[in-house]
């Protein structure tokens, strides 16, 4: 069918809705991850979700999306705690802690996955779809659940906006004011896990990090105000979601997840180059202008200094 027919197809519309929600969700919480220098946490959490999903499948024996989501959530929470614990209680720095949790959890996940696939009912598990995402398999029920989760995430962020802001900007000061910074940290982590859980269905475990990072970084180039940054990031995320989905419908073998990521990356490169004030081209123009005016004012000074004064011969 042609393009117009395609986007009027209700199945496609559900998929578009799903990827739109993914983009919005990850854009919102991705901003906080970025500002807290925890961009790669999303990558670690996405990989860590795999064993959770496998355990959920092994316990329930069914492909229930709720089961998978809960499994991923529990694994994500454990991973968050582990990363924090390692960073706090040992000399291991955060980047190594992330790498450790990412690979170990994922390794355990692969062990469970291969065990499941070797077992009798394993081949129908559809679990490996979680690795690269399978946006095309999203059905209305999945999307409705995603919408609820997304609404919840946005609501909490809106409700606790000033708390998230201060705990991200100056946690010591926030603690002094009486805010429980550990609790708030965990809550932000939890929302991050929630966004990951929503997103891995569409883009998969490996590429989920992109949706949390790229829209937020892009948005930072366009504004200096936190609330605008969040709105912009969610818009960029949503556009990438829809854009990638539409692009993948153009061909036969094109995978949705990577195309969503590439759409976001294109917007990022555009922002990097063309954003006013912060973009590379804007900065180059300022530098060029400064060079010219400095040169000009130096020349002027020389001129006025060497000009013969009035009344003198």
């Amino acid at each position, binding site marked *: 069918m042609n393009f117009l027919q395609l986007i009027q197809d209700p199945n496609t519309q559900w998929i578009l809705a799903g990827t739109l929600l993914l983009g919005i969700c990850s854009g919102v919480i991705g901003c906080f991850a970025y500002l807290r220098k925890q961009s790669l946490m999303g990558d670690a959490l996405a990989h860590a979700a795999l064993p959770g999903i496998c355990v959920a499948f092994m316990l329930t024996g069914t492909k229930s999306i709720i089961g998978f989501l809960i499994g991923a959530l529990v694994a994500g929470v454990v991973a968050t705690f582990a990363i924090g614990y390692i960073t706090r209680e040992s000399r291991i720095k955060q980047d190594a802690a992330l790498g450790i949790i990412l*690979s170990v959890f994922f390794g355990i996940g692969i062990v469970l996955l291969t065990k499941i696939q070797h077992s009798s009912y394993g081949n129908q598990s559809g679990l490996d779809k979680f690795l690269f995402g399978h946006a095309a398999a999203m059905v209305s029920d999945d999307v409705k659940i995603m919408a609820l989760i997304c609404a919840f995430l946005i609501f909490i962020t809106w409700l606790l906006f000033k708390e998230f802001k201060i705990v991200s900007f100056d946690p010591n000061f926030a603690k002094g004011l009486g805010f429980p910074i550990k609790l708030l940290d965990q809550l932000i982590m939890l929302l991050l896990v929630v966004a990951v859980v929503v997103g891995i269905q569409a883009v998969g475990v490996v590429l989920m990090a992109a949706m949390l990072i790229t829209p937020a970084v892009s948005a930072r180039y366009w504004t200096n105000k936190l609330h605008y940054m969040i709105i912009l990031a969610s818009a960029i995320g949503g556009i990438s979601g829809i854009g990638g989905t539409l692009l993948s419908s153009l061909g036969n073998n094109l995978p949705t997840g990577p195309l969503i990521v590439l759409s976001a990356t294109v917007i990022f490169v555009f922002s990097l180059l063309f954003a006013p004030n912060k973009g590379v081209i804007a900065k180059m123009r300022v530098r060029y202008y400064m060079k010219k005016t400095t040169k000009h004012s130096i020349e002027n000074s020389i001129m006025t200094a060497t000009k013969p004064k009035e009344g003198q011969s």
Partner: protein
Amino acid sequence: MSSFWIILIGSLVACSCSIVGCFLVLRKMSMVGDAISHAVLPGIVIAFLLSGSKEPIFMIAGAIIFGLLTVYLISMFSNSGVQADAAIGVVFTALFAIGVVLVSLYTRQVHIDLDHVLYGEIAYAQWDLISVAGIDFIPRSVWLVGAVFLVNILLITTFYKQFKLCAFDPIMAAALGIPVVFFHYLLMTLVSVTTVISFDSVGAILVVGMLIVPAATAYLLTEQLSKMIVISCLIGICCSAGGYYLAFLLDASIAGCMVTIAGLLFTITLFFSPSHGVISKMIRRKQLSRKMASNDATL
């Protein structure tokens, strides 16, 4: 006999990874290792498409080019104001996405199921004409992995002082005339080569585990870089052997089990390391409190 080969290859992979991984951990570049291991995928695919052959040499070339490209792009974005961790994330996900798209587009020519890329073992093994599923390693990969191991050992020991100083104090190294940038890219090249050769046995995504976890474990056990490298290699060998037997017991992925054992060893060390373990620190803190209390009593 095959279990010997498997464990040998796993050990060589683990040791090669540990040697460079120690420097990644010390330079706080663990996630750059993760990034490179993902980003080499498009390099391998393009190398195959351009050369029309699955010979490892092309694969390695493609991996090196994309490994260095990754590092270069990360630096470029970092220098133009993007936060370092975000720069890593943007670059490797974009490159990996390109790789996945290329693999999907040229599926028919390569006989690769997209699903298999995630395991890495099977996908990259097909590039190398080595049958995998962890049961039967043809000794040819022993040559490849062995060669990488020797190259790593050779380069790191030859330039040990330089690598060490660049990791510990790059500014001082530069002041002494050491070409810091060159050694940085040399290290990244070693990571790329080690990564791509390790794909056979451990898979793309799990290479990160072998790069980081044994090195981090060793970091908790010693204060000396040389000891750290040796200990992480020993840990890597344990992971390889332990992982193989665990996989046999559970009937599961060898690579996954290797990393699981690595995680187990790390956790044990985290708590019980005599110098840096959590339990040891708790005991020391209690002793200190008691000492201070008795000091008060005597005052």
